[in-house]
């Protein structure tokens, strides 16, 4: 069984009315007040999303996951990170503590703008997965020079 959860994404979608926009902003403000730990209680893995003019960057904390067990999928604007983390197999040992979780995970986030399929990249290093997602040409910010008539 694969559990799929939609994370509490707080990316403000475009095309909202004034009231919805205010609602989003208020929710985001509460998130800020609560601190980063409060935002996604119970959803694994923890994600940080950043953005610049060309790309979205998603970072996930995924310590001890084998590369073969990790999957990243993109459909339209939804990015899904899924996989499993296996408990270490040890023979003839007695456990004193077992705090590290093992099992399967799947998490999706919906990004607020369209993505470009070319140039997508995912790197796993030191237990952190970094996904680079280029923005579609149409979604990039643009400046229009104003000329006098």
């Amino acid at each position, binding site marked *: *069984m694969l*559990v799929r*959860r939609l994370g509490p*994404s*707080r*990316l403000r979608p475009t095309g909202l009315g004034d009231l919805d926009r205010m609602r989003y902003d208020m929710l985001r403000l509460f998130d800020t007040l609560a601190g*980063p*730990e409060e*935002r*996604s*209680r*119970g*959803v*694994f*893995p*923890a*994600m*940080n*999303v*950043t*953005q*610049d003019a060309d790309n*979205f*960057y998603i*970072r996930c*904390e*995924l*310590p*001890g*996951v*084998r590369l073969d067990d990790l999957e990243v999928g993109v459909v339209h604007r939804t990015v899904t990170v899924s996989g*499993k*983390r*296996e*408990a*270490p197999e*040890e023979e*003839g*040992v*007695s*456990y*004193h*503590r*077992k*705090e*590290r*979780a*093992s*099992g*399967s*995970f*799947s998490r999706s*986030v919906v990004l607020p703008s369209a993505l470009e399929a070319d140039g997508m990249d995912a790197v*796993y290093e*030191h*237990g*952190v997965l*970094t996904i680079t997602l280029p923005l579609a040409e149409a979604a990039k910010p643009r400046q229009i020079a104003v000329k006098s008539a």
Partner: protein
Amino acid sequence: MNEESSRAIEMREKGDLEASEGTRPGPVFTPPVDIFESADAITVLADMPGVQPEHVTVDLNEDVLTITGYCEDGEEEGRVRVVQEYRCGTFQRRFTLSELVDQAGIKATVTDGVLRLELPKADRARPARIEVRAGA
């Protein structure tokens, strides 16, 4: 898929360690650990995502074992934070060992953000055998 791997992983908070005396700025987290013992060694596994192997220190003082590792925030300048669910900082945890450990034989490796520490148990004093010879 067996039952073990079909369970969903729940995200756990990185607990803040209280009363730690850090020398680096930033939050201090308690990494989740597995500790298991075999006949000849104690093994500690600790989750430290984002920590490079060279940033991990293991210290054994008398019977107090301290593991510390820090991660550097890899976020580059000029990027706007959209969602932030975790922070980078220092991972630290301290244990008191109940068994004697062979200090020279301690092995520590960091793979994919997980520290694996193997602490071989010290040889206990072997029962001495005294040979009894017949007197001439």
